[in-house]
């Protein structure tokens, strides 16, 4: 690929890890996402009258630049929670605020990375990455320029004109990540983004995500069912319990950053993971 972009993340020297002071100076550092007593029920299908309490009285604050992971047994409503914050589904009661404003639908301040990748099968990598910008009416030249930068960032340079079905799962989700980052959102909402990817690739993707997050430091809400992943990535892990979906506990992860594979070998990492498993084991029904 020709290097037509003047500024690309790859050509910059690796960004130094931003210290807390410089981050605080650059932003208001206040709450980015606030949930106040949010509840959600799903009606059963047409014939039945059963309802499911997907979420029950959820209260939660996510601060700017925070990386939050959400974990819990299936049926705990973690994906529902993410979709409510994304503005994709309505909630029944309570309040959902993003940057202090109530959520009434999807907005340019949030971008979603989907478990199923949700790439348009007829669109090339470049077109897929530029999709979010296209919906905002950004002219072709400009959006493609931005998209190329992000394609490079996620390590897909040279694949711009490929179709999704010619890419491996890991590469497809790199496209999904680039698409989300391309709109330069304040918040990244990631719904089990590596759940459909094999273990080896997933580990590489986790490292990639940490690397990219290192110099962008978006606020991230990351749903997962992997305990290693939850602890490795997060500043705080939200542990949810099922039926009805509730916040069971919030666990701090005071591990130093930048993190990587070596983090997983530390005693502190193992301790937090074991703690998480002890709590999950109790509510897990097989």
């Amino acid at each position, binding site marked *: 690929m020709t290097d037509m972009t003047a500024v690309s993340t790859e050509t910059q020297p690796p960004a130094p890890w931003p210290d807390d002071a410089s981050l605080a100076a650059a932003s208001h550092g206040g709450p980015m996402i606030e949930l106040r007593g949010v509840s959600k029920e*799903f*009606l059963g299908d047409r014939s039945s009258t059963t309802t499911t309490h997907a979420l029950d009285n959820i209260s939660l604050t996510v601060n700017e630049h925070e990386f939050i992971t959400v974990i819990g047994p299936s049926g705990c409503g973690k994906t529902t929670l993410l979709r409510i914050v994304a*503005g994709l*589904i*309505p909630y*029944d009661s309570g309040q959902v605020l993003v940057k202090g404003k109530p*959520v*009434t639908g999807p907005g340019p301040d949030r971008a979603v990375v989907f478990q199923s990748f949700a790439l348009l099968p007829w669109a090339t990598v470049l077109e897929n990455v530029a999709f979010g910008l296209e919906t905002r009416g950004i002219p072709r030249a400009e959006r493609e320029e931005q998209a190329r930068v992000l394609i490079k960032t996620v390590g897909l340079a040279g694949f711009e004109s490929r179709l999704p079905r010619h890419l491996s799962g890991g590469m497809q989700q790199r496209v999904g990540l680039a698409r989300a980052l391309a709109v330069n959102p304040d918040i990244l909402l990631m719904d089990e983004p590596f759940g459909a990817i094999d273990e080896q690739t997933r580990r590489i993707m986790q490292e990639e995500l940490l690397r990219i997050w290192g110099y962008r430091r978006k606020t991230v809400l990351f749903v997962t069912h992997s305990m290693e992943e939850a602890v490795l990535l997060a500043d705080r892990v939200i542990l949810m319990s099922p039926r009805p979906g509730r916040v069971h506990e919030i666990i701090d992860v005071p591990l130093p950053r930048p993190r990587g594979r070596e983090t997983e070998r530390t005693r502190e990492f193992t301790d937090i993971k074991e703690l998480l498993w002890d709590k999950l084991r109790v509510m897990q029904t097989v």
Partner: protein
Amino acid sequence: MAAAAPQPTASAAPFDPAPAPRRPRRSLARRLPVEGLSLLAGSLLWEIAGRTMDLPWLPPLSMILADLVTLLGQESVRANIMASLQALVIGFAISLVFGLVVGALMGRFRSVEAALDIYVNALLVAPTIILIPVFFAIFGLGDGTRLSVVVVYAVFVIIINTMTAIKTVDPAMVEMARAFGASEAFIIRKVMIPASMPLVMAGVRLGLGRAVKGMITGEMLVTFVGLGALAARFGSQFDMSKVFAVSLIVLILAAVTNWLAQLVDDRLTRWAD
């Protein structure tokens, strides 16, 4: 999202967002019998148009229904219906046996598929009606023409679906049965046949619909018996109301046979829902 998120308004598309917090409730449009109302409105419109416009080709619906009752009361008409049914049943039975056997062979053996594929596909997509004069030239005015028209309408879709069904049986399932030491006959009986049943039955149902069309078209073109001959006769007398009435009989026939096929289908493929 559509499956889980209740639609907030009547006009909401399956992919409309419903972001505003509100109590979900069932919309009015969901509860209305839209299909029935639409059919009623269409019938009324027809009746009114038929009465006011007085076009020879658009008799009022009530007149058609009255003719339908009259026709069904006539001995000769009932004899023609029976004649049509006979051609349909025999022709469809031939199609079924032939279609299932040839389709299964094509699905199981690559050589058979390679040999027949092009002809089956050509005859499936080519306008079948063009063959009717050929059959007429060969078989004349006899039952041979009527039956062969029904068969040529129905058989190819049964062949294609049966072939595809056999070919797409999950190889993992067959392998599983082999791993348990099942014999080839056992695998066919217990794995291949049930697994291919939904697609096979879909082909059989399509074939049945086409058989009804073949029956009526063949009768219109080449014979003096059956519903098709009735329709042709009324058509040449320009008695449009009776033509519509005969069409209605055929439609009822198609609906009843489809319903019967549905019953069989439901019994055979209950696991697939």
